[in-house]
């Protein structure tokens, strides 16, 4: 493979990344905005079930689904394996409550 051809290929990919960068930045910004919005719910510590409307606490004595660590803290995050759960089953009606 000639140097020119290799340079051309790298330039092409650099251009693609450069052109895609604003799209990714916008995507990240939107993601961060959405995440921070959702994280307010995590900070409040309570979320109502969309089905039965009863309030579920997000901070409980919970076990990680992946590594099995049981600890007092957020039921959505494991401090041992860093597993993040985006949803959990309502304590009252067992319907899925999506948080993140």
């Amino acid at each position: 493979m000639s140097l020119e051809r290799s340079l051309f290929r790298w330039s092409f990919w650099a251009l693609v990344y450069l052109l895609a960068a604003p799209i990714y930045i916008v995507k990240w910004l939107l993601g961060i905005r959405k995440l921070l919005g959702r994280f307010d719910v995590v900070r409040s510590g309570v979320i109502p079930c969309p089905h039965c409307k009863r309030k579920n606490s997000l901070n409980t004595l919970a076990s990680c689904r992946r590594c099995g660590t049981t600890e007092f803290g957020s039921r959505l995050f494991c401090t041992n394996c860093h597993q993040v759960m985006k949803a959990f089953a309502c304590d009252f009606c067992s319907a899925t409550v999506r948080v993140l």
Partner: protein
Amino acid sequence: MDFLNMLIDWLFRSNQKESYRRALEYEAEKAGGTLGQNEIFARAREELAAGDTTITFGHLARDQLIAVSLQVALMSALIIGATGSGKTRLLLHLLTTLLRRLFRVSPDDAPFDFELELVDPKLETFDLLGQYLAAMWLSAGDEARERIAGSVRVIDWSPDAVTPFAPFDNAGGDVSNAYLAFLRTDVAIQSSPQAYTESLRQARFMFNRLLVERRFPPNYRFAVRLFTNERYRRTILEGVPDADVRSYFEAVDRTLPRQTRDALLRRIQSDMSFPEVRLSMGIPPAEIDKLVRVSGRPIVIGNYGCSMSLPLSMGKERASYRIIDILLAAPRRDPRRRGLLVLEESPVLLSGSSELGEPLMAAARTLRSAGMGIWFCAQDLANALPSQVVRTLLLNTRWWSVFQSREEAEWIYPHVVPPDDDVEESEADRHREFLRAVHGLRRQHFYLLVKGQPALPLRAPDLPDPEASAGETASKLREVFRREIASQSMVSAKVASRLIEEWESRVVDQSEVPPPTASKTKPTVSNVDDLLRQLGVKKGRKQS
């Protein structure tokens, strides 16, 4: 790991300490650890009183009144405890409070409309409630007095006056004639101390069917003539629409052994030989309609106690008849008007009577939809009834008040909130201490358990004696009750005796058989004779 995941990880880590603290608090609260006894009682007090109208059950140690919403209070319940522990007083407090509201005795009483049926096989509650009603009547104005006298129906029997009662009258048509006769037969047999063979039972059932078909009262002389005089029997059977009854009695000389017939007559004679029973049940149903107004009286208080003057089986039989009538009519009642059936000494009624026990157990499960509750009052409930009956009662009652008792204390122990300074005591010690405390509860003190709430240690409200509240003696109050209230639904023994004699002379001696009254139940057609009879075509019958 992408950027967003890193951010999530960082956010959770930054919030970790707060999450830990909150999780600890939440779990402690869930276990009830952070709330003290006072807070738990205060919350229960608030939740129990949620509703438009409430009724006071008693007060906690710090004079905090515990009132329960009437919606809950009038559901099925258990009032249990030893003799003299105060359960009758609590019952009377609740009933008199409700009655004052129904009769609107004073302007302060919040009006409340309901129906009450008291079944008392021991006389005491009936007698005391009668005195309280008399005291209410004396203290009320003219309008309230009329309301009291017009609303209360008294079921009682004494040698001087009786409440007429027609056990074989199916004018209401709630059930078929055959089923009414079946229920009456079964109750009579189960209440009776005498033994019944299969053929004797069948003979009694068919005799009761005939009484229902003809709307006749039970009468020994009628029974003797019916079974011994074939010609008279044919006259009686004329116009009986039920072909089964006709064919049974037409062939009764061949199919019923003489010994069985005599045994049946002996039992009828034995039942009807007591004047109170004969006078109350012997009046023809058609005459009862003219004598007293039975319908439109929402309060029915019944004395089924025999107080040494009658065999206990008589009272039990009559109480069972009455309860069955209430249960049969209950599904057709207006559920918007709350109804309450109070069974004093319920084990006396429930033990050994499957014909009453089964409908009552079914009623405890289903009567809620008819707006009706049953209060079962009892002592030693855990041992007095079969375990499956006790279990049904425990499952199907909304609240329990447990006075001084033994085994029943175990039922409420899981719902008891220990005192705040009791945390160091072991579970076994606490359990033992609680049982000991319930065995020795003082009079008027009880635990109230409304399901879904903790058991509340209460002291029932002080209920002044009727004499004290009315300023009259007990005998004077009894006289007022008999004269002003009971007399509306009772007839004197003289009148009852005269009516029975007239009926006997007309129907038994002179064979003047009144035409059978039209029953609301559909007449059966099982052969051509029935069809012709219903079409009004008379068929010639040779009289023997």
